[in-house]
């Protein structure tokens, strides 16, 4: 009994630090779930950190487009060809979006590059390869090559098996020597890098929708932007984070179509 009393007194001293620790945890969780700390990084946007509905201007650049160029809505994806979640989106969800919204002329789909450095060099190589395919066959070929990459890649930076890029080009009846020369010469590397720089700058200039993960503006792939089409080549877009299920895209697209 006396020993238990001693134990109790010994453990009682832990009560205060444990309470502080648990209290700290509760506060940390509260900050996380309420949208993070406002870290508005000196931009003049007046954004409120962590607002997922904050619209941001997103340029379509001269990147590949799938669907009717006059479609009322535009969906932009920033893709990393080595990201397994981009792969899941491409192999599962994208076909549903294409069938219901792109093929029916409601949405045009624009693909931009965002290879993550920890998936390189495979991620950048794949992005360049897709652009090399586009150089030969246009946007439709780009998207066919995109499908080929995601069917063939082991993802997470492991890339395609040896000869995979050329085999995919051959399957699409591209000129393989021209394709290989383009890929080996990294002909479109600056194009890919420009996309990465663009998105990196965007999240600094407009941190609000990207400040939902632990307070700091961060972005992962796949990253989507949905907005009304604009002849200026820049859309005012809502950020859609991650490989959401088809239902999320349908909700967002239908809501915008009904406006």
């Amino acid at each position: 009994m006396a020993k238990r009393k001693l134990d109790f007194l010994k453990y009682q001293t832990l009560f205060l630090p444990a309470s502080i620790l648990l209290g700290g945890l509760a506060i940390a969780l509260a900050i996380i779930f309420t949208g993070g700390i406002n870290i508005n990084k000196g931009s003049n946007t007046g954004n409120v950190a962590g607002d997922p509905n904050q619209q941001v201007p997103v340029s379509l650049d001269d990147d590949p487009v799938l669907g009717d160029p006059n479609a009322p809505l535009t969906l932009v994806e920033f893709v990393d060809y080595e990201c397994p979640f981009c792969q899941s989106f491409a192999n599962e969800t994208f076909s549903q979006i294409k069938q219901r919204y792109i093929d029916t002329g409601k949405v045009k789909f624009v693909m931009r590059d965002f290879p993550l450095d920890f998936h390189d060099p495979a991620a950048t190589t794949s992005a360049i390869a897709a652009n090399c395919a586009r150089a030969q066959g246009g946007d439709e070929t780009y998207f066919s090559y995109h499908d080929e990459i995601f069917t063939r890649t082991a993802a997470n930076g492991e890339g395609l098996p040896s000869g995979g890029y050329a085999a995919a080009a051959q399957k699409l009846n591209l000129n393989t020597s021209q394709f290989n020369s383009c890929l080996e010469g990294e002909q479109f590397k600056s194009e890919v890098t420009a996309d990465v720089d663009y998105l990196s700058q965007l999240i600094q200039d407009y941190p609000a929708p990207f400040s939902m993960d632990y307070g700091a503006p961060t972005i992962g792939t796949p990253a989507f932007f949905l907005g009304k089409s604009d002849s200026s080549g820049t859309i005012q877009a809502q950020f859609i984070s991650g490989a959401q299920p088809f239902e999320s895209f349908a909700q967002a697209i239908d809501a915008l179509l009904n406006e």
Partner: protein
Amino acid sequence: MNKILAALKLLLKNPLYLLLALVITVLLFLVYFVVNDLSYYRTALSLSSGPWFLWKIFSHHLWLISQATSWANVAAVGLVAALGGINLSLTLLRVVRTKVFLGREGFSSLLGTLGGAFAASCSACGTALISLIGVSGGLALFPLKGLEISLLAVAILSVALYFLGKSLVEFGIAGK
């Protein structure tokens, strides 16, 4: 092992604490995944908050992780959540019966429960909780894609449960 069994038997004999363990398990499982993918869930919540829609979002998240890693990774996170639930519920039982708040297992129980949060993954590359501690490549950089962290958390929580069981036996609350 006997001490762990004694703790589990005690839990089974106390339906209220068993229910509490189940509730904590479910909550921890949800938190482990949600905390790794806040932007995914906040995007979803900005679109709809219907229960069916949110269930679809969560189940899709689990499916994505199973595709990027394996179902074993998802199950391991579930096991961490279950052990966390059992530990917390039994700790509360001991507090109520003995007024002793923390024992030898307190720190490891907390460590294992928090560690579980790092074992879950997200639905986008580059935004998981583990990036907070400098692992920018996320769980993809681990050979078992984060299963290592789950197993470590399971080991820590099992040790915590052992000491908790021992303490409950010593206090005469659980049978030997």
